[in-house]
Structures are given as C-alpha cells and as structure tokens.
C-alpha cells in the first residue's frame, strides 16, 4: 500500500495528538465589533465583525504546511459564535464536564468568556430570541416536574435511563468503592447537569420536536470565488450598488464589499507571516516553500487562481473563513472538490508544471485540514460528539455534470488515494450514477479496506428529488452533499438542511397518552381519543397521523420563527457574496437572497415506529394476543412484569426483512410525512423538505422516549436514520435494501441514510469487493438514495471498547459521517455494535 507523504504524516500525527482547546478569539472580536455597531444594518454589523475577527485573530503557519489558513489560536479549537447562543449554556453549566472530556481553556479566556462575552449576549442571542418567540407563540413544551408527573415518569422510564441521561460516560467500575465514588461525583455534578438539561430543552418544540439555533448547512459558492476571486465579487457588488433601491440592499452590498476586503487582508496576513518565517528558517527547502506560500497568499482568494496549488489554497481560505464567520457546528461544506479543482489540475499537467505526486500531496494535506474540526457538544446521555471530524466538512466526489454526462475524473481517483492514505474520519460522499465507471465504484468500495468512510449516493434518485423540489435539471445535476447526506445546490442554495426534527415514535406516545408526551407530560397535542377503544388498526393509524401532522406543523412554525430572527438580526455577507442570487437580489442569504431557498424538517426513528405499528397490527388487531389496554399499561411501566409480552412483541414482523406488508407501513409513513413537510412554505418562496437522518443522535433522542410497542425498552436508542431497527434485519443485506427501497426516496428532499455493516471478511476477496459494488448498484436500481457500510467486525469493536488505547485509529461510520470509534460515547459505541452484523458468507 502506498503511504502518506512524510510531511503529511507529521501533520496527521500532530492533529491526532493535539489537545482540544476552547479558543475565544472569534467570540471576543465578534462581540467587540458588535458592541460598537449598535443600530446599524445587520449586514454591515456582520461585515464589521468579520473584519475585526480576521484582522485580529492569531494567524498560524504550521511546520510542513503547504496550504495555510487556521481558524483559531490553537491547532484544534472550534471557533465559537456567541451570537448564536447554542453553546452558551454548555459553557455556563458544563465547562467542568467539557474539561473532563478533553477540552482545555486558558484561565484568562475562561474568565472573559463567562464574565464578559456570555453576559453581553444574554437576551441578544438567536437562542434567547428563539425561546422567547416560541414561548410567545405557545410552541414550547414545559417539563412538568410536579410530584405526580415525576412518579409517572419514574414508572415509565425507571431510574436507569433518567440517570443515564446525566450520568458520566466512563467505563463502569464494579467495586463498591468505584460505585460510591461515581455516585459522589454525580451528586456533585447534578445541579449543573440539571440546569444544562433544562437549558438544552430550549430546543424542544411542543410535541417533543426539536428546532436548534443554527441554520447554515450549506455549500458556499466556491465555484464563484475560483472564477472571480473576491476582487471580482467585490466588483459585482459595487456595480450592483448603482441600482440599489433600498437602504437594505445598499447595506448588504456594502457589507459584501467590506467582507471581500476582509478576506484580502486575511490572506495578506498569511503572506506576511510566511515571508517572516522564510527569513527566519535555515532550511533552504522550507524557505523556498514559504516564499511560494507568501506569493500565493498575496494573490488568492482575492484574485482567481492561475494554478492547481493556488486553486486548492483559494478553496481552503474560503472554506476556512466561511466557518470562522459562521462559527463551528454549522455544517459548511466544500462541495464538489474534484470538479472545482480539475480544470486547474489538467492545465498544470499539460503545461508540465505539476506532477500527479505533488497534486496528491496537496490533496492529502487538504483532507487532513478538512478533518480538523470539532463541535462543542455536552456529554449527555452517553452521546459524545466532540471528536475530530464531527463538524462535518463533507466532500462530494464523482457523479454527473450539468449536461448529464459522467464527470468522474482523475482527481476523483486522486481524492480516493488521499482519503485512503490519510485514513482519517473523512466524510466523503461518492455520487454514483448509471454512467459511473465500474472501476471507480470498485475503488470506492475498496476504501473500506483501509478506513470506514465513503458514502454512496444515487445520482438518479437525488437529481429526481432536486427537480421535484424546483431545481432546473442542470442545477440539480450539480448537487453536493451537505452535513451528513443532505443534497443541496452547488453554491446556489440556502436551506438549513438540519436542526429541525420530529420523532415518529413520539406520535405513538401522543396517541397512547391522548396528546401528552411521557417525557414532558404537558398537554401538547390534540386528544385523539381513548387508545384502548380503537376498534381497528386503521383507526389507530389515523390517530397516529393526526398527531404527526400537528408535530410537523409545530416544528415548521418554530423554524419559521427562528429563521425570522436570522433574517432580521444576523447576516453573513461573506458567505452570501459567494452564493448565486444574493448580489443580484441585494439580499443576504438569511433573508432570501439565494437563488433557491428551502427549510427542513427531519423525521427520526422510522424503524422503531414502523415495527411498533406492525406489532400493534399483528398482536392487537389480527391475532388478538394482547389488548390495547394491556399494551398501554405495559408501555407506561416499561414492561415491568411483562417480559413475556415484550418477547412476543420483539418476535413480531419487522421492517428490513423484505416483508411487503410491513414495508408498506414504512412507505406510507414516509410518503405522508414528506407530504406534510413539503406542504409548508418558508418565508422566502421555497418550501420545507423532509429528511431521515440521525447523526448518532438517535441514542440521545431515544433516552427521552418511553417503551415502544416493538418491544424496545424505555430510554433505549431509536432506530437510526432510515435503517431498520438494530437487530431487526434477519435476512441479509439484499432483504434490508429491498425493504428500504420500497419507500419512494425521491420524496425525501433532504436525504436519508441507510447504515449497514458488511459481512465479516467480505472485502478480503476481489469477488467480495465486486459484490459490494453490485449490492450498491442493485439498491440504487431499486431507487435507494444513500447507503454506507461499516466493515469492522463485532469482535474488533468489542476489543476496542476494552482496550481503547490499542484502537486509537479505528474509524467507523456513525450516520452520514465517520468518527474514531474509541472517542465516541459509550452508548453510541453500543448502538453501532448493535447494528446487525451480517454472518460470514458461505
């Protein structure tokens, strides 16, 4: 196997061994500028704030780097956007927890963050405004903690899941002393944890839905920056100023012009630093490299690149600055990197100015940089997401071009090599069409031999879904994957593909409890009648859909309110300047500037819900083995004393086994959900799109869900994404794929994810690799949208739990993104182990 370039190996090693820090520079300078711009238009305020950040933040050039551009004062530190407010409560209540789970913060920074920055933003953040707005519109669900409610919750969940929600994530010790110590620690931490849980519930929407603070989840218009440079973009904005009709248009266009200047100043700072370092170094080779870096930074991204290396540098500057401008945790994605960079590669090769080896070295370094992202996530419910690669910077490779021809190129393959060599948790999406070269698909499958990272996306289905949602077919063919697996336009769209969500099993909970959720306990929804008196399965199903429709409505309404806050107060002229439509319309992307505008409502726990409905149909209505009364009672006590019933339910017909009558329930559920979502219009002319993805949060979300009629215990994870429930698949991958493909995937505008584990050892033979490629092709011919595989066997995963120190580089696919297995929380680890492992092939 070819290996990583030695200079990149050193960079990878630094990345894997670096401490994770909390850096407050982005937060401090943004806040400083914001204080000084009270009363100004939000586009100008944002541009001024960006300018301040990019002028004053620390710039770093690391040893061995050919591509430069850092995002904070430490090698690994997420830029914090305090104006969003989504992490403020974590810092306030859980900073000590974060330190225990790997983050560090300088003492001075901690003081400034807690005493100056966060207090300034109190009542001013997106989050505070959102919570106030949701309250004012009656869209929140209060956590009822009255004694009778507490008793009810305790009965439904038992102490285990509720404790696990706040308990620390560590390998459990078994001695009395261990337990006593743990208990003591927990007691000491409990007040902070409970405050954090309450604050975290600010994302909760009536009916146990969710609406987070962040929008973003977009592909910046890298294509436009490469074509025009920020100088060209600035010229367009200035030209458009002449015809600006409103104060708002003028302010936005001026904000764009300022942002372009800020980008130029930022890259100039790297040019100066490179020159200074080149004068200091005694290594002649490094001096030459630094001089070339200085020259490049003096040109791009201000001017259009003239060479491959300038193009990669320009792309990285824009990507990096976009993330600084928005803050971490925003799902900002580079897009179709093989397509963006190919013309430069080809021209340089033809001119003899670039070798394949040097291009590979640059792509390896780019991949390492794209893995240098973390998000700030409280360690709740055993969900730990603050590992490298978690703030997904998804790259899209392969697929059709705008004219419908296969666009897979030499760089697509070079990226595969770079991903394989770096063997990091790279999130890479491979677009596969009927025209994709077979050899390319085979190479993508073979990546699993080194690392679990590729996702397969079906062009035919994705493009059909985009066209259905209103894209021109040419624009649709340029789609890129955002976040985990959400198809979005290539620098022409604004659509916050994630963050708003409902859970299908909650609709059942609302039916069983006549409009209240077990966890919150308030009368959120409509009373769909006494569940013990449903005369038919159809009657129950109709109540289920009534509840679901209300839930979708509340979450969409909440999302509208949140989006209005962004549109009114928090613009981003930098990213907007790159996106098609914004300059033309003289509007920020948050205020409807982009050519295409959408919103999203995700659905979670499909497998759990479908298995539950199938079990009710089979055992209550068809076989009459149990009454609705018995079932409701058993669910409200987490099957205590009714293990017999739970076993029966577990043995029921399950989604994922190619059973037409069960799959029909899933098909109908998804179709009706998508129709409910798509019917909701957004403020700027688009509509909401549905998605079925979980990002590993199915573990956390399951912690709030009582026992379900499929035999799942209270607090256990929900099924992930659009996959069958863990352990439900009993007939192998073709049966699971046949089931999932019975759903019409073109209805799901923002994508879905099917997570599968490959049979043990299948990739050892060429026949096995070929068969996995055929499996993907077969699934896609049936209309499947996305599939990804974990190729690691259970024994290895268990061993990694036991001896994490020996498995530091073990990478698994979580859900739409990849992660280091040993850095995941225990409960996500268990969930991944629980996904059906397929038996060895005979």
């Amino acid at each position: 196997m070819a290996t990583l370039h030695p200079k990149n190996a050193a960079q990878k090693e630094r990345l894997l061994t670096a401490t994770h820090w909390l850096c407050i520079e982005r937060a401090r300078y943004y806040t400083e500028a914001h204080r000084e711009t009270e009363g100004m238009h939000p586009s100008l305020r944002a541009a001024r704030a960006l300018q301040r950040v990019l002028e004053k933040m620390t710039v770093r050039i690391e040893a061995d780097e050919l591509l430069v551009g850092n995002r904070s004062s430490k090698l690994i530190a997420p830029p914090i956007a305090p104006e969003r407010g989504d992490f403020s409560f974590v810092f306030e209540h859980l900073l000590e927890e974060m330190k225990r789970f790997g983050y560090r913060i300088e003492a001075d920074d901690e003081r400034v963050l807690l005493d100056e920055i966060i207090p300034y933003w109190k009542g001013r953040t997106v989050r505070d405004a959102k919570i106030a707005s949701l309250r004012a519109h009656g869209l929140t669900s209060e956590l009822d903690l009255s004694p009778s409610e507490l008793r009810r919750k305790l009965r439904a969940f038992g102490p285990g899941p509720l404790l696990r929600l706040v308990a620390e994530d560590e390998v459990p010790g078994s001695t009395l002393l261990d337990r006593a110590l743990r208990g003591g620690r927990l007691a000491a931490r409990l007040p902070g944890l409970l405050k954090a849980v309450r604050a975290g519930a600010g994302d909760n929407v009536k009916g146990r839905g969710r609406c987070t603070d962040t929008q973003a989840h977009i592909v910046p218009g890298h294509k436009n920056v490469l074509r025009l440079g920020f100088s060209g973009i600035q010229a367009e904005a200035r030209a458009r100023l002449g015809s600006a009709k409103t104060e708002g248009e003028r302010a936005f266009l001026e904000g764009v012009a300022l942002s372009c200047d800020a980008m130029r100043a930022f890259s100039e700072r790297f040019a100066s630093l490179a020159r200074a370092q080149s004068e200091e170094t005694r290594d002649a080779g490094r001096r030459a490299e630094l001089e070339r870096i200085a020259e490049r930074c003096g040109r791009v991204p201000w001017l259009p690149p003239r060479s491959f290396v300038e193009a990669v540098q320009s792309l990285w500057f824009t990507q990096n600055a976009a993330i600084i401008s928005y803050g971490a945790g925003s799902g900002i994605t580079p897009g179709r990197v093989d397509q963006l960079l190919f013309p430069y590669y080809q021209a340089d090769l033809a001119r003899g100015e670039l070798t394949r080896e040097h291009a590979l070295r640059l792509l390896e370094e780019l991949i390492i940089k794209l893995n240098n992202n973390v998000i700030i996530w409280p360690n709740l419910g055993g969900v730990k997401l603050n590992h490298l690669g978690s703030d997904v910077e998804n790259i899209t490779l392969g697929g059709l071009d705008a004219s419908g021809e296969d666009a897979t190129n030499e760089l697509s393959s070079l990226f595969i090599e770079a991903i394989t060599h770096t063997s990091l948790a790279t999130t890479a999406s491979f677009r596969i069409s009927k025209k994709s070269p077979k050899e390319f698909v085979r190479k993508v499958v073979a990546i699993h031999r080194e690392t679990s990272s590729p996702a397969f996306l079906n062009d035919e289905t994705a493009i059909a879904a985009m066209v259905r949602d209103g894209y021109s077919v040419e624009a649709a063919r340029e789609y890129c994957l955002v976040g985990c697996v959400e198809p979005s336009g290539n620098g022409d769209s604004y659509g916050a593909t994630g963050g708003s969500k409902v859970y299908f099993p909650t609709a059942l909970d609302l039916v069983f409890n006549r409009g209240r959720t077990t966890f919150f306990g308030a009368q959120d929804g409509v009373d769909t009648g006494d569940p013990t008196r449903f005369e038919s399965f159809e009657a129950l199903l109709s109540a289920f859909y009534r509840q679901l429709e209300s839930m979708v409505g509340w979450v969409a309404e909440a999302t509208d309110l949140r989006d209005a806050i962004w549109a009114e107060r928090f613009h981003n002229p930098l990213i907007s300047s790159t996106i098609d439509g914004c300059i033309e319309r003289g509007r920020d992307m948050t205020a409807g500037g982009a050519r295409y505008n959408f919103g999203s409502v995700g659905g979670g726990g499909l497998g759990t819900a479908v298995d539950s409905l199938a079990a009710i149909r089979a055992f209550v209505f068809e076989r009459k083995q149990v009454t609705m009364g018995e079932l409701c009672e058993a669910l409200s006590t987490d099957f205590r004393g009714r293990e017999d019933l739970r076993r029966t339910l577990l043995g029921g017909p399950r989604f994922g086994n190619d059973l037409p009558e069960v799959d029909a329930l899933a098909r109908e559920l998804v179709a009706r959900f998508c129709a409910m979502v798509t019917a909701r219009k957004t403020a700027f002319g688009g509509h909401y799109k549905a998605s079925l993805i979980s990002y590993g949060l199915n573990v956390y979300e399951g912690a709030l869900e009582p026992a379900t009629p499929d035999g799942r215990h209270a607090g256990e994870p929900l099924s992930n994404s659009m996959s069958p429930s863990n352990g439900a698949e009993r007939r192998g991958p073709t049966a699971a794929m046949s089931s999932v493909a019975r759903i019409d995937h073109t209805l799901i505008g923002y994508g879905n994810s099917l997570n599968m584990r490959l049979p043990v050892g299948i990739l050892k033979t060429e026949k096995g690799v070929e068969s996995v490629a055929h499996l993907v092709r077969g699934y896609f011919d049936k209309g499947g949208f996305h599939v990804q595989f974990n190729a690691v066997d259970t024994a290895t995963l268990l061993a990694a739990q036991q001896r994490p120190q020996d498995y530091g580089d073990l990478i698994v696919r979580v859900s739409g993104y990849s992660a280091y297995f040993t850095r995941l929380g225990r409960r996500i680890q268990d969930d991944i182990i629980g996904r059906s492992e397929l038996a060895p092939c005979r």
Partner: protein
Amino acid sequence: MSLNAAAACRVFDMQRFSIHDGPGIRTTVFLEGCSLRCAWCQNPEAFQSGAADELSPEAVLAEVLKDRDFYAVSGGGMTVSGGEPLLHLAPVRALLEEAKRHGIDTCVQTSGAVPKGNIEAVLGLVDLFHFDLKHMDPRRHRALTGAGNGRILQNAAFLMERGASVQFRMPLVPGINDDPEHLAELARFVRSLGAKELRVLPYHRLYLDKYTALGMVAPLRGTEAPSAERLAWAAAELGRHGVAVVLEG
C-alpha cells in the same frame, strides 16, 4: 394447497446474498438429502429428515425472485445446493424449470454421486455445474464419504462430453487429500476431461458448531484449516501438473 409430493422441494435453508456459490450475487437453496456422508460435511442438517420445509417449486422461486434486481446487476442467480440436490430428480427439475421460465441463471452444486439419468435430465436447465472431486482413490473415497467414486468420475466425464459448463471443485482437507501423489492424480484426471481449472475450497472449522447444536460428533473435529503456506504449496503442485488453481472462500 395440496402439494404434489413428488415435486415438493425439501428445503432446509435459503440464503440470500450468497457470493461464493457461483457468479454474482445469488440465492442458494439448500435441499435435504445426500447420497454421501463426507467426514468434513458442513451441512450435516441435510441428512436429517424432518428438518426441512416442504415447499412447492413456485414457492421456492418466489423467494428466489425477490433478489432478481441484484442478479441482474451482478450476473447472479439461483444456486441449488444441498445435501445432494440431484438426488431427488422431480423436485429439483421442477425448480430449475421454474427458474428458467423466469429467466433466472442457475447453478447446481453436485457431488456427482447420482444416477447419470438425473444429470442428463437437468442438462439443459443448468447454466453452471459446481462439481466436487473429493478423492481419486476409490477405496479412500469410500472410507471418507461412504461411497466409491466410479459413478462420480463417469458423471464428470459425461458432463464434459455433453459440453456442459462445469467448474470442478476440490475441498482441500489437510491429511486427507492434500498429499502430492493425490494432487498429481487429481490434476491428471481434470486435464483428461479437457478442463483447465480447479477451484480449491480450503477446509475450515466454522461448521463445527452445527454438529454440537445437532447433538452430533464431527469426524474431523481435530483437523485444522490448512495454512496459507500449505494452500500455496498445493496450488503450486497442481499448477506444476498443468491445472490452474482458483482459491475460493
């Protein structure tokens, strides 16, 4: 539904996504009953009468057809295995006819220890035969499998004469059939048939749990899987005698 007893398939397992039982992605149908009792048999449940489901050929094929899209993309289809699938002619023939009626590629895995007429009767219905050659010496063959190999070798020759598509396969069992003399003789026989290739299936121990579960004692429970070196050596030996080896499994 009353099942025509003669045409009922006694199916003890069906496995979708089989990738080592012929070209592409396949569904393997395991039929009960066998004329041999090989010491290394990995499907001992095939001997047990009563463990199988009686299914009409149409019902079996309905299951097989579920993965039709996967056969189409991979060049796969249905494989009939066992036991010895050609032991009971009527059901296997009906099943193969049903598959052909639906345009499904067919592969039959046989020991060859059946009347020649049974083979002849399915010739036009089988796209590929997997034909096992376990041992060339009739006495050793009888000792290891309970039957001699005369009929098997004749059937192998018959299939080749009739122009059938055949892959010859040899389970390589350490200490049983991996000595140089046997490999040389096997290679000679394969070449005499006009075949150029032999598929070698290395013995493994994964099946031993099945014996425990069935309350049976596996005769070769003490035998280890051949090492990679041993396999490479055996492949070279066969190669030296003019037969190309494809390692399976």
